[in-house]
């Protein structure tokens, strides 16, 4: 029978299946960070349980770490306790940790691929919803809660029910200035924030195949914003080339065996999907979000919606609530939205290609005088690479601050946050109320669009700045 890529990975990880459909799934790779793990380790201690496979587990502190000078440590007391607790837990349970001063430290979803810990055909979990990122490698990767983190630590398995198969085909070529961030924002706008609930999404089509590994990660990363726990893309030569020689990638004979297995990881022709939609890449434009849900998208050429043109009462109320929070007027042009801050970074857009894309727009330009802008590389290795290429100088010369790696203002758990009513063009993934700081207003955009907004002082069309 023809099966999908998701079916194949699922079947290959079944430890046990009960009559009621509940399955026990083997977990090949477990990523751990400081925010969602302390209670899990505490649970292990309380029940006298061990970590079953410390060597299949990798930990890093990313959410709480400062992005400014780290030589003085973490000044926030609670953040420090959480980071110290992770360190103590990793020591006690013998888990590899990239500490705050390790060059390899960074956002958990950036360091996994960077180290070759992320591999095709594996089941990867982490107590973080953006674990979907790793699906770009053809792995089944999804976020879990802390109780499940404890379960994985203790058993190296997870209790799961099979999800539905959903395929999104994107064909054609992207217009100049349009990126994979715009593709995923367009998809979320189309399917809605609950459109993928109960599903695993496979992204396919010639556009998807033409994307670089990093661009694919941006798409898979925001799958959760479309309601699906996992998004995946069949692995190909680009993925294998990316992984070859990475510190934790298979070596020698193992590499050959792995490659042989990875080459078969694809959906069979004729496999049935529960849901399927098609998009034409050529019609996608630079996108922004105007509201407080990632599904609230418009193109940069559009106007902010008017609640009065909405017939459905719930939707109308929802638009009114969002406009009020965002401090926007109905029918105003996207380019009339003036911004105060720009944030370039996060597990969505904090990789080297993202920084290159923004730097290309910022080269020899200054950011608007009323804009405060920061760039936070996704990892120490991304930072190092960017500095080797001189990107840091381009950012600093244009007026950006060049920071240390971490999650930073994507969720504002550290000191980087918006003040009430401050407005930010952000390359992150969530524009929820209060996400970047209480009362803060977030517009999600691509790195190039964030750079364009920084220069113009308002949301603007990146294509204006492209040579």
């Amino acid at each position: 029978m023809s099966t999908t890529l998701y079916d194949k990975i699922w079947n290959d990880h079944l430890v046990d299946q009960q009559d009621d459909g509940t399955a026990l799934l083997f977990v090949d790779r477990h990523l751990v960070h400081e925010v969602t793990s302390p209670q899990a380790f505490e649970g292990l201690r309380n029940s006298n349980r061990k970590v079953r496979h410390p060597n299949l587990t990798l930990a890093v502190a990313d959410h709480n770490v400062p992005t400014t000078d780290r030589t003085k440590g973490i000044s926030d007391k609670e953040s420090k306790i959480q980071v110290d607790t992770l360190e103590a837990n990793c020591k006690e349970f013998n888990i590899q940790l990239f500490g705050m001063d390790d060059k390899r430290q960074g956002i958990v979803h950036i360091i996994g691929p960077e180290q070759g810990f992320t591999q095709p055909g594996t089941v990867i979990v982490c107590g973080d919803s953006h674990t979907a990122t790793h699906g770009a490698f053809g792995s089944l990767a999804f976020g879990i809660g802390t109780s499940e983190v404890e379960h994985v630590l203790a058993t190296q398995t997870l209790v799961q029910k099979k999800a539905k198969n959903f395929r999104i085909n994107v064909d054609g070529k992207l217009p100049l200035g349009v990126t994979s961030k715009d593709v995923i924002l367009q998809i979320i706008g189309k399917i809605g924030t609950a459109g993928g609930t109960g599903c695993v999404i496979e992204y396919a089509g010639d556009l998807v195949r033409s994307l670089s590994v990093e661009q694919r990660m941006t798409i898979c990363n925001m799958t959760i914003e479309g309601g699906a726990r996992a998004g995946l893309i069949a692995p190909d030569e680009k993925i294998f080339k990316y992984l070859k020689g990475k510190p934790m990638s298979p070596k020698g004979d193992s590499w050959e065996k792995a490659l042989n297995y990875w080459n078969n990881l694809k959906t069979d022709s004729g496999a049935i999907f529960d849901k399927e939609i098609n998009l034409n890449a050529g019609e996608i434009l630079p996108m922004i979000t105007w509201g407080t849900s990632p599904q609230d998208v418009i193109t940069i050429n559009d106007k902010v919606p008017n609640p009065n043109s909405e017939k459905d009462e719930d939707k109308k109320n929802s638009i009114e609530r969002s406009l009020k929070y965002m401090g926007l007027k109905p029918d105003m042009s996207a380019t009339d939205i003036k911004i105060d801050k720009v944030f370039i970074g996060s597990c969505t857009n904090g990789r080297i290609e993202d920084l290159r894309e923004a730097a290309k727009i910022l080269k020899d330009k200054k950011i608007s005088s009323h804009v405060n802008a920061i760039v936070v590389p996704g990892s120490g290795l991304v930072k190092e690479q960017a500095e080797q290429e001189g990107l840091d100088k381009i950012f600093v010369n244009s007026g950006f601050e060049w920071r240390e790696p971490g999650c930073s203002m994507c969720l504002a758990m550290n000191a980087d946050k918006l003040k009430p009513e401050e407005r930010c063009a952000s390359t992150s993934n969530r524009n929820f109320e209060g996400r970047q700081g209480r009362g803060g207003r977030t517009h999600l955009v691509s790195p190039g669009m964030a750079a364009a907004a920084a220069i113009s002082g308002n949301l603007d069309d990146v294509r204006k700045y492209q040579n």
Partner: protein
Amino acid sequence: MQKFNKLKSIPAYLPIVNIDTDMIIPKQFLKTIKRTGLGKNLFFEMRYDDQGKEINDFALNQNPYNGSKILIAGKNFGCGSSREHAPWALLDFGITCIISSSYADIFYSNCFKNGILPIILEEEKIKELSEYANRKEEIFVDLKEEKVVYGNNEIKFKVDPFKKKCLLEGLDDIALSLKKSDKIESFENDLKNTKPWIFND
């Protein structure tokens, strides 16, 4: 885990769709290393003003909703971040049952790990039940019978049989899975042969 069987309460109603876990418990409260004590910060930004005073308009600040054990809310409840702090905060506040027309996947499964029952009903039934919140009348939830009783009416809901059993009996699913240790071990032994690179061998 606390068992869930039957529950009677005046429900609280939040007529908002897409309530995300950032709204349920904002990030500044994720710095805890404990599971308890989050109830006072549940829905923090909607519940308190800039000075930290309770906002009277917000349902959960009003009597009797400040003692509600059942929360009725708009569709796609619990979307966004995977933080289990969201169900912990609800539980600590005293809410052990949520009724909505849909939930985000991760939040939904997190509820069951904490003795919270998330019930899925059609939107028109949600509207009917919300009237009981408005009138401050009790409704009754029976997990074993899979039904909600309100006034002279009752409506059936569906819940996964395994999840139901765990809730009814308050089972620790790690202990359940560890009972399958033989199967896990045999899977691992196969894996070492078929995919040696997984264990970095």
